[in-house]
């Protein structure tokens, strides 16, 4: 740096400190969630001494920071790929066809929770979940209906499936086959990313080790048989949704990727045989520049990682990713603001160079999207592509002092975590030890505390509130009807199949799984062709692998730290201490998830922050039935139960819980409150079923704690 430049920088510093009346510019550094310091000004001096980011590189060129391809959007814009699915295959198929006509370019299938967890629709464990948060698939016949009149040789199909990945991918292949499309022409992506399920999303079925074997088998099979199909979508999305900061999301995702590469190598595949079909999936939240830097850093680091694995094919070195705007950034309060949030997030994703994008509908913090909200979400992308001129230049932010430096900072911070994970022996080991999960929970709790304490502004939630909250329409699924339809269709399939043949196929699966022989996907295809159900195949695998039950311990002390000397916080503590003095014990609350919904970020945050306030908190295991929850509540004599629900099962599960509680103790005084994604239209229904309070997304923990201690005190007087 020349003397002149140094001099002018010093002049600027003088001016700055005088303008804002501080001693040093450093007083204006902003520390992000990732603990990266953001400076008020970046200059040429910030472009020096990079270890990762090569600012002289070009798009489609090592280390691919500027994009996996030379032409990027100038030749073809990103794929508008909206994630959707609900109710029955018939309904979802209609919805897909309508969307494709309206400008959507790729399909992305959302399955319901029973399908994710490998249960058929008639399983009593899943009564509240069938067809709710996605489409219910029991047999290949459902899959055929789902893609009816959709040209599978041309349309790329992305499927979010991890737990029951074998029967679902097999059903997709057989559906294609029976509709006249050979598996060789099928294009798309299966998520197949089990490690992050153990970390955050919780729709696993089997323990980590056999689950990794399944991943390996799928990579092996698709590498040989399905050249146009992405065998895995290594996903950071759900980590950010669960509260991870961007560095954690980036680092854990790439570390997961390394583990999958190793799983495939252990199958005897050469790295360039499968690596071109590895794809990624990131979340794009509201931290605009950080998200752009994250995508640039992801490509940079992945190229380095793959080179270290000995990859030579350029396609193995380049990270291609799908992105989705953040669901957790959406608010129930003043929901039209979500359209604006999603737009900025979409812009971030595109400036970061994503290959495809899902934009959330504004009502997703409240319910499943309607036709109206889906159209706006889709048009958010179509306007970006067609009206803003953003596709005319590749990587338009390159050379920005700030963006380049932030890219380098992200690389360095993520690389540090990746090295730590590698020292632990890789991600499977780190996940088994529960380390990433705890780190993410800690970050999630910090984020929540920042909002609740007002240190972070969320418009319409903790500042600039709308005095006239708008009422919005929501999509309602008749869960009972879907379930009956599914069971009827499944029974029809069952009555028309060769059960001897099927039994042999299922036995083959169990034996192969037990003896670690053969390819499980190949064998599953046989069973699905013989009209085995998703539940039957999953059970055959379970017979060999067992089912995985996660432990569920939270962090503590993280939330309370943000509220030292906060009046409201101390006031609630005082009320709790008073309660203990009068009643001989602390107010005790059971926090539960019911049904197959594994999204437990909210439940975890409530548990840890309530404990910090002085409650005794019982954490229930995941995937409980209403009966399990009632038994737990009665045996531990809790004062209240907090039900966290994000998958639309509340109308079935909550009344069932009330009934189960009554059966165990007809005079019980247990207060039930509900939190999560609940449309306002359902509030009265829940109140009529004796729910005492409902807390939607964006409710401050302090407000809910205050209400809960008030309700408990009243009830126990």
């Amino acid at each position, binding site marked *: 740096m020349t003397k002149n430049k140094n001099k002018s920088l010093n002049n600027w510093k003088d001016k700055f400190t005088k303008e804002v009346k501080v001693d040093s510019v450093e007083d204006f550094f902003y520390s992000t969630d990732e603990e990266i310091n953001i400076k008020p000004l970046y200059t040429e001096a910030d472009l020096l001494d990079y270890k990762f980011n090569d600012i002289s590189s070009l798009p489609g060129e090592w280390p691919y920071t500027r994009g996996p391809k030379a032409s990027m959007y100038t030749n073809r814009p990103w794929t508008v790929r909206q994630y959707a699915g609900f109710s029955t295959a018939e309904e979802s198929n209609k919805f897909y066809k309508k969307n494709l006509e309206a400008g959507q370019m790729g399909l992305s299938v959302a399955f319901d929770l029973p399908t994710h967890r490998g249960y058929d629709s008639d399983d009593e464990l899943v009564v509240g979940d069938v067809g709710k948060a996605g489409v219910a698939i029991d047999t290949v016949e459902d899959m055929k209906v789902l893609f009816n009149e959709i040209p599978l040789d041309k349309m790329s199909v992305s499927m979010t499936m991890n737990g029951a990945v074998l029967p679902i991918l097999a059903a997709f292949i057989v559906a294609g086959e029976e509709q006249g499309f050979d598996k060789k022409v099928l294009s798309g992506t299966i998520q197949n990313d089990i490690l992050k399920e153990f970390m955050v999303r919780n729709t696993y079925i089997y*323990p980590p*080790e056999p689950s990794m074997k399944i991943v390996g088998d799928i990579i092996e099979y698709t590498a040989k048989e399905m050249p146009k199909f992405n065998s895995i979508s290594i996903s950071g999305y759900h980590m950010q949704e669960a509260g991870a900061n961007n560095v954690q999301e980036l680092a854990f995702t790439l570390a997961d990727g390394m583990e999958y590469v190793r799983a495939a190598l252990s199958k005897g595949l050469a790295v360039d045989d499968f690596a071109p079909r590895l794809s990624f999936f990131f979340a794009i939240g509201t931290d605009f520049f950080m998200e752009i830097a994250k995508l640039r850093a992801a490509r940079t680091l992945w190229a380095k990682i793959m080179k270290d694995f000995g990859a030579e094919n350029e396609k193995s070195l380049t990270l291609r990713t799908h992105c989705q705007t953040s669901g957790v950034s959406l608010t129930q309060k003043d929901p039209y603001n979500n359209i604006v949030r999603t737009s900025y997030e979409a812009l971030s994703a595109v400036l970061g160079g994503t290959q495809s994008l899902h934009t959330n509908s504004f009502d997703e913090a409240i319910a499943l999207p309607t036709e109206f909200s889906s159209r706006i979400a889709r048009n958010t992308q179509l306007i970006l592509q067609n009206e803003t001129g953003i596709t005319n230049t590749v990587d338009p932010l390159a050379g920005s002092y700030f963006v380049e430096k932030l890219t380098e900072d992200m690389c360095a911070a993520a690389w540090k975590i990746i090295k730590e994970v590698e020292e632990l022996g890789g991600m499977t080991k780190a996940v088994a030890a529960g380390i990433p999960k705890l780190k993410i929970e800690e970050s999630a709790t910090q984020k929540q505390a920042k909002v609740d304490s007002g240190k972070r502004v969320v418009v319409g939630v903790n500042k600039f509130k709308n005095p006239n909250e708008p009422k919005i329409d929501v999509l309602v699924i008749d869960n009972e009807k879907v379930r009956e339809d599914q069971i009827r269709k499944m029974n029809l399939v069952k009555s028309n199949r060769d059960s001897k043949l099927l039994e042999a196929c299922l036995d083959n699966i169990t034996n192969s799984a037990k003896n670690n022989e053969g390819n499980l996907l190949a064998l599953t295809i046989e069973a699905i062709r013989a009209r085995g159900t998703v539940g039957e195949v999953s059970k055959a695998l379970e017979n060999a692998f067992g089912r995985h*039950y*996660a*432990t*569920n*311990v*939270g962090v*503590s*002390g993280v939330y*309370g730290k943000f509220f030292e000397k906060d009046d409201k916080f101390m006031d609630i*503590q005082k009320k*709790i*201490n008073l309660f*203990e003095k*009068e*009643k*001989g*014990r*602390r107010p005790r609350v059971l926090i539960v998830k019911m049904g197959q919904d594994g999204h437990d970020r909210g439940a975890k945050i409530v*548990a*840890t922050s*309530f*404990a*910090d*306030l*002085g*409650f*005794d*908190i*019982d*954490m*229930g*295991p*995941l*995937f*409980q*039935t209403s*009966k*399990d929850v009632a*038994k*737990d509540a*009665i*045996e*531990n*004599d809790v004062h209240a139960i907090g039900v966290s629900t994000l998958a639309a099962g509340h109308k079935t599960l909550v009344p069932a819980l009330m009934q189960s509680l009554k059966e*165990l*103790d007809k005079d*019980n005084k247990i207060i039930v409150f509900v939190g999560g994604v609940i449309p306002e239209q359902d509030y009265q229904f829940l109140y009529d079923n004796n729910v005492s309070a409902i807390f939607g997304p964006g409710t401050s923990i302090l407000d809910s704690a205050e209400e809960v201690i008030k309700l408990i005190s009243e009830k126990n007087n």
Partner: protein
Amino acid sequence: MTDLKNRIIAGERAAIAKAITLVESSREEDIDRSHLLISELIKSPGHAVRVGFSGPPGVGKSTFIESFGSFIIKKNFKLGVLAIDPSSNFTGGSILGDKTRMSEISKNENTFIRSTPSRGSLGGIATGTREAAIILDAAGYDYIFIETVGVGQSEITAANLVDIFTLIVGPGSGDELQGIKKGITEYADIFIVNKHDGDLASQASRTASDYKSAISFYNKDSDDLETQVVLVSSIEGKGMNEVLNAYNNIIETNKKTNQFEIRREQQLAYWLEEEVRNKILLELSNEKGINSLIKSEIQRIISGDTGFYTASKGIIEQFLGKK
């Protein structure tokens, strides 16, 4: 009270739960009522075998209980679990997460699983744990498992609550062996070496044989049953039958030698002493002027005006003298 007693004996879940709340309560009137209830329940004892579990944090106590519990409920036994959860935080609240590791047994009709925050009470068990075991016994449970928080020095108190005291250890280093030596073998009836699976399997077997040789070296009084060592894998369910056999053997032998009854009597003596000691300490701390006397004596010790033993003798005499 008779109503509550009858409902407990009838095995009514909600009544058992309310009674445990009562014996855990710190409210004066609850304490009186709980004494009344317990003295009633003691008149109708069941036949439960009480088993204690201790061991360092992270060794897999809850996971073992899940695995072994599943094994014995399949044999149609009724199982009560009292889990003392260590996780109290600075504000006094706690997260009771032990049950998340017991999802299978907690669903079962034939179990009763209760978590209690330790509240930092000594001995790794909570106020009311002894009484809670009496309640579950009266309610007809066959086995009562007591899971302690498993921090050091908790063994004596916990061992005095149970008929069989189990120490769970992981595939560990020789350092841990230093810790067991003679003292612990006097309390532990059985060592369970967990995590005999995956990468740790061979290390676990080595640990088990280390324990075996250490125990034969430090063997306790020759009349007693030698402390047993069993190798298990909670996640794979291996070794559960061996544990049950070992338990049966301990109970049978101790019943034959009258050790079973003698131990229960000794425990009663222990708890009576504890109760008296605690009451005296409580009375002492409630005594007016005692705190300021202690403070001033500390000052006098520091300034050299008196010695430690003289001061303590003086305080005790002053207190006892008033009685």
